[in-house]
């Protein structure tokens, strides 16, 4: 099951003409919130590199008292596509309950109509980031709560 805010993004992409989808993804890239200061100084335990991504790409995951997941990303401006993926996940999953994040299907983006614009192999960055988020949520004890 895809969490509602993420489903909304998927539908927006699916309902838009192909020529507009890249612009939408760029909007997510540009709208990705900067990494909060407190992570900049944090070590690799907190801010983790996603090795499957082509460019240096880091993410941090936190779970709050209400068992909701919060996501933080850091990706260079020269990698707008990866930033766009992060922006989609930030807007679609931030604040979602732990269980919803863990249940998000790995191929949730297949209906977004990006495969014709971005080579399918390169789209794997999106599932790699999601997989990394889930792994981190489990490490933080999210699965047992």
């Amino acid at each position: 099951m895809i969490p509602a805010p993420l489903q909304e993004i998927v539908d927006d992409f699916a309902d838009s003409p192909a020529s507009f989808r890249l612009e939408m993804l760029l909007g997510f890239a540009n709208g990705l919130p900067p990494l909060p200061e407190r992570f900049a100084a944090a070590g690799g335990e907190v801010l983790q590199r996603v090795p499957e991504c082509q460019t240096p790409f880091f993410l941090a995951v936190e779970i709050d008292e209400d068992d909701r997941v919060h996501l933080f990303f850091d990706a260079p401006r020269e990698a707008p596509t990866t930033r766009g993926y992060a922006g989609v996940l930030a807007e679609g999953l931030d604040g979602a309950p732990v269980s919803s994040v863990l249940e998000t299907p790995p191929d949730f983006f297949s209906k977004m109509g990006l495969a014709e614009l971005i080579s399918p192999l390169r789209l794997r960055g999106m599932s790699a980031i999601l997989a990394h988020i889930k792994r981190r949520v489990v490490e933080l004890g999210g699965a047992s709560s």
Partner: protein
Amino acid sequence: MPVERDPAPQFDAYAHPERLVSTEWLAAHLDDPNVVVAESDEDVLVYETGHIPGAVKIDWHSDLNDPLTRDYVDENGFAELMSRKGIGRDTTLVFYGDNFNWWASYALWVASLFGHADVRLLDGGRQKWIAEGREITTDVPAPAPATYPVTPRDDASLRAFKDDVLAHIGTGPLVDVRSPGEYSGELSHMPDYPQEGAIRTGHVPTAVNVPWKRAANDDGTFRSLADLRAIYVEEQGLTETDDVIAYCRIGERSSHTWFVLTHLIGLPRVRNYDGSWVEWGNAVRVPIEK
């Protein structure tokens, strides 16, 4: 050529200095009606974040590849693409892009398959243009459609297929331009890149490993002819009588090496195997060496 070559002295020694332009030259020719600048990137959104004023975008995936068959667009598709981008058959077509011009070299190579005569590469690519603080814009040009003749693609002279590579083992030089880890079979994909679906790892038997990056300076420009000859001619022993095939993973890094061997060193017979490791590492019963 209708547009004179960049007279910059750093290009003089190369076999075909007319194939390169400097950032200075390009900045002075942005308004030349005989010149079209095309950006070809690895990241499909980089152009949209800002590009050289007036540059059109040519995407390797959505523009140059056929959407159905694993091949390039056919002659009609290419003519239509060129027309749409405002490129005529006589246009001086200058490519540049991100990541050391990998995809710019690739797009230039594809345009060469269709015999577009005046193709050039911006030495240093996007990286150098931006490092020098030159102007970029997000304004997307809307060129008037040009007339481009439907011209057949000639795959025989510049492109190698799997069977050509198979026949080349033991008979001609094969240059594997991937990283040492990919060549040795330790890695199935580029360091830090996603796995692109090759089932087996290693290299084509008899291929030598000359990573593409050896031909580039850190600022994205090509190394001098003397440096390039030291690598490919003196060290690797490639000569003008050789029939050379270069490959990488999907043909983009080997386009960079193809450009070096063909246009900078001037070897007359160099082909790019665009199927590369993603084809070879999945093909049934082809020999592999580790």
